[in-house]
């Protein structure tokens, strides 16, 4: 079990987090200055928490109460930083050998060869880091970190992709904490996701569940949900299992909200991809809102539409081409797509 309870107060960042890292890949995500890198530095031992406790696979490496604070070399925590930290004067092979120093010569060569094979570094073994592409340098840094046989691997945001995380998963069975803001990557490759903002954990849980079901407006904002509106409950009908929400200039029908009263303030979040758009001439349905299209933004595979009342919708290029000549618009916020906090 790897567990961290950390408190560290910096001038603009009061960090206070507690989480466990099970085996597998845990992603940590948040805006710049949220404290992601600080968390990694504290676990690795490059910075000292003000208080708290860090267990690395049940071994105590930091305890604020008793003053235990193992230096980084005794923590067995692999760390791949945000900048290229390969030793520039050594070749890739020498970099890997450096990490495998504790093994006898034959064993060392065997382990380095295996790791080079696994991370497809065989052809670049005699190159210096300056001659490597960015992804190769990252592969090399990860391979080097794993050669030291860490109990936990910490990966800073260096543009790790799914292929790299799969290689890590195949080479290392312990906990991996990776910093990334790529939720597609989290969804595809991470087992758990920690959302952090302002030094606090906003949500922590299985990656897919966290991405699909944010539990607060802050989590929704961190997950990049484009439509977040403050609303007031204008009506509750448990018989029909519906509630009526007044969101500024429009009303929404949502599923019944148990535990709430009429007049309560809530927040409604809807993903831009879940918002449907229709021609203004169509008959109105549930949560159809007449609105004027104010601007469009091209994306690689989609088009983002922004409407006058602040609603954003994301349509595929084909859908956009079919609707672009609409003279008037209605946006539809399907009740099942509404997330209410």
């Amino acid at each position, binding site marked *: 079990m790897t567990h961290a309870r950390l408190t560290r107060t910096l001038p603009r960042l009061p960090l206070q987090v507690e989480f466990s890292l099970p085996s597998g890949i845990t992603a940590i995500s948040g805006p710049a200055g949220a404290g992601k890198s600080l968390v990694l530095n504290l676990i*690795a*031992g*490059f910075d000292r928490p003000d208080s708290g406790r860090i267990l690395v696979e049940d071994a105590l490496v930091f305890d604020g109460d008793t003053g235990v604070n193992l*230096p*980084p*070399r*005794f*923590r*067995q*925590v*692999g*760390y791949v*930083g945000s*900048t*290229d*930290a*390969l*030793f*520039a*004067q050594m070749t890739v092979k020498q970099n890997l050998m*450096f*990490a495998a*120093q*504790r093994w006898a010569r034959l064993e060392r060569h065997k382990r380095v060869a295996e790791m080079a094979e696994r991370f497809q570094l065989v052809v670049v073994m005699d190159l210096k880091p300056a001659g490597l592409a960015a992804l190769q340098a990252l592969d090399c*840094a990860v391979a*080097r*970190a794993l*050669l*030291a046989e*860490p109990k936990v691997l910490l990966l800073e945001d260096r543009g790790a992709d799914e292929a790299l995380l799969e290689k890590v998963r195949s080479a290392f069975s312990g906990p991996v904490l990776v910093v990334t803001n790529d939720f597609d990557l989290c969804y595809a490759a991470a087992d758990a996701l920690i959302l952090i903002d302002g030094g606090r954990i906003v949500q922590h849980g299985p990656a897919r569940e966290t991405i699909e079901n944010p539990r607060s407006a802050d989590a929704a904002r961190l997950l990049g949900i484009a439509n977040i509106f403050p609303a007031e409950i204008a009506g509750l009908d448990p018989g029909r299992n519906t509630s009526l929400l007044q969101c500024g200039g429009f009303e929404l029908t949502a599923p019944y909200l148990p535990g709430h009263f009429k007049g309560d303030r809530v927040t409604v979040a809807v993903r831009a991809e879940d918002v449907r758009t229709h021609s203004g001439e169509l008959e109105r349905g549930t949560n159809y809102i007449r609105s004027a299209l104010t601007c469009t933004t091209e994306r690689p595979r989609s088009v983002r539409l922004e409407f006058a009342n602040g609603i954003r919708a994301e349509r595929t290029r084909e859908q956009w081409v079919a609707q672009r000549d609409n003279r008037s618009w209605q946006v539809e916020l399907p009740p099942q797509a509404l997330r209410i906090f």
Partner: protein
Amino acid sequence: MPLDPTSTCASLAGGVAVGLGLGYWAARRPWFDLVLWVWAMIPLVVLAVRGWPAGALVAGGLAVAPVVALFVAGEFRTLVAQWNAGRSLCAGEWRIFRRVLLPGAWKAVLQGALIGLIRVAAERALAAVL
């Protein structure tokens, strides 16, 4: 007083060794730069030659040390990512210093030694004029 090559080399070697150690220590303590700057401003060789000629050798080393330390500390600070990487790879500080920091900072060592040598020569010349 003419420059004696043997004593100058000995001063330089001693100063570089002390400067490397100081630079390594100061690299993680930026406040210590101020101490090094103040130390570097004191004309140790001039004072030694005039007051205690036999101490000129030691004074030469002590005059070179802060100059080397300032160069080396600055360079080591640029290698902090490699330094941390080495520490997380379970390497000892001496091994990191020898295998990672020193090879990465040899230009700074040379620059510091050269400027230190010029400084010792200039101070000896100044002492001779005075």
